[in-house]
């Protein structure tokens, strides 16, 4: 199911920039950058990792949609379902 795939992709992308984070302790509604201590380079690499895993090119204007785990998941579910979102890889 694509939601599980999206969930896994978010976690993998997060771990690639913040390897010491324990996914089971993540607060889905708390700001990811603050929670995982991500600076701007980390966040950019996180978005790149999502792109490489899911083929989704997230525009900068949409970065606020990735503020929390929950919002990021909903965003990916929305944009990757049926891939008619206009977000070309």
């Amino acid at each position, binding site marked *: 199911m694509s939601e599980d795939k999206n969930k896994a992709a978010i976690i993998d992308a997060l771990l690639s920039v913040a*390897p010491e984070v324990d996914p089971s302790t993540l607060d889905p509604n708390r700001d990811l950058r*603050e929670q995982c201590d991500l*600076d*701007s*380079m980390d966040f950019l690499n996180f978005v*790149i990792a999502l792109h490489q895993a899911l083929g989704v090119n997230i525009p*900068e204007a949409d970065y606020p949609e990735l503020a929390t785990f929950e919002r990021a998941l909903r965003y990916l579910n929305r944009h990757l379902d049926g891939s008619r979102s206009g977000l070309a890889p």
Partner: protein
Amino acid sequence: MSAFLMPTLGADMEAGTLVEWLKKPGESVKRGDVVAVVETQKGAIEVEVFEDGILDQLLVEPGVKVPVGTPLALIRKPGETPGALPVGPAQQAVAPIPRPVPTPAPVARAPEPPAGPRLRLSPAAAARAASLGIDPRGLHGTGPGGAITLHDVDASRLPKPAPHERPAPSMSPALAMRSAIGAAMARSKREIPHYYLGTTIDMAPAVAWLEDCNRDRPVTARLLMSVLLLKAVGCALKEMPEFNGYWVDGAFKPGAGINVGWAISLRAGGLVAPAIHNVDAKSIDELMEALRDVVKRARSGGLRSSELSDGTLTVTSLGDQGAAAVYGIIYPPQVALVGFGKLVQRPWVVDGRLVVRPVMEATLAADHRASDGHRGGLFLAAIARRLEEPRTL
């Protein structure tokens, strides 16, 4: 034939432990080639050679601790005959470890019990002390009645750390890093008369420029505000080179290039500030690649010795999660540190009207021996001007 010495790795590192050689005798090397990996308090560093030639002899074995300046290898020029210099035991390279050897310094430690009018020492000890040129009066006696034995004379020759310098039994990497940072920062505060200036920069033009740029770019080619900050500092340094260099032996020495150190926080704790070389000459895209590369290697332990030794000024950007302004400590022997705080929305005045603008606080910590506040203010203004007109970067 010339000796390749252990290079300086920055103000806070006096020695490293050779981990492995990456080249073998007989291999040719070019200036900038990585020839060895050295473990330091700031992690593993790749050591580069400074000249072209052929690696003639390796003088230090893996596992040996090498202070800065220790000969690591011999490099010969093409055409020179391979050297037949005696390769001393690895311990010779270790000899110059700067620990005070408490040979005859009576003030260092009083013999216990206090020596009476006649010094008690065995004939063998007396002979040994005489042959070594050691004054037995400063020695501690473990023989009967506090007499100084042969063993005591021999034991006094071993370098012992002075009590206040006794190192921790086995320092964890985190502790070693903290200790290195602490030593450099303490030295800086002790030796450098810092002055501090701050200015608020209207970042709306830079933010808009970045947004326009990144909108049309795939995620892998996007730029960060950090590179605009770096470039602005590089350009300002070109305009005012008195902030680009070192304070050494009572005078300012200009840096050979504009190599801006970028402070990088390590996830496990700690800080490194490797230099990006020739920032003024790199395009914004080249800077982004260089920044991406240096951050990656800083975090994975692949920094090069030239990145640690060539910085001519350091920038610390506390970015999104950090403070509004940072008043930093200069990294010796540099003469300035530029700090950038968080990008925040604030009320601002444009053409007499109140608007909301994204602004950033930029600060300068500068060495008052090398510059005065007036020039410091002009330097900060030069940085601000570049950021307020990003097309000029």
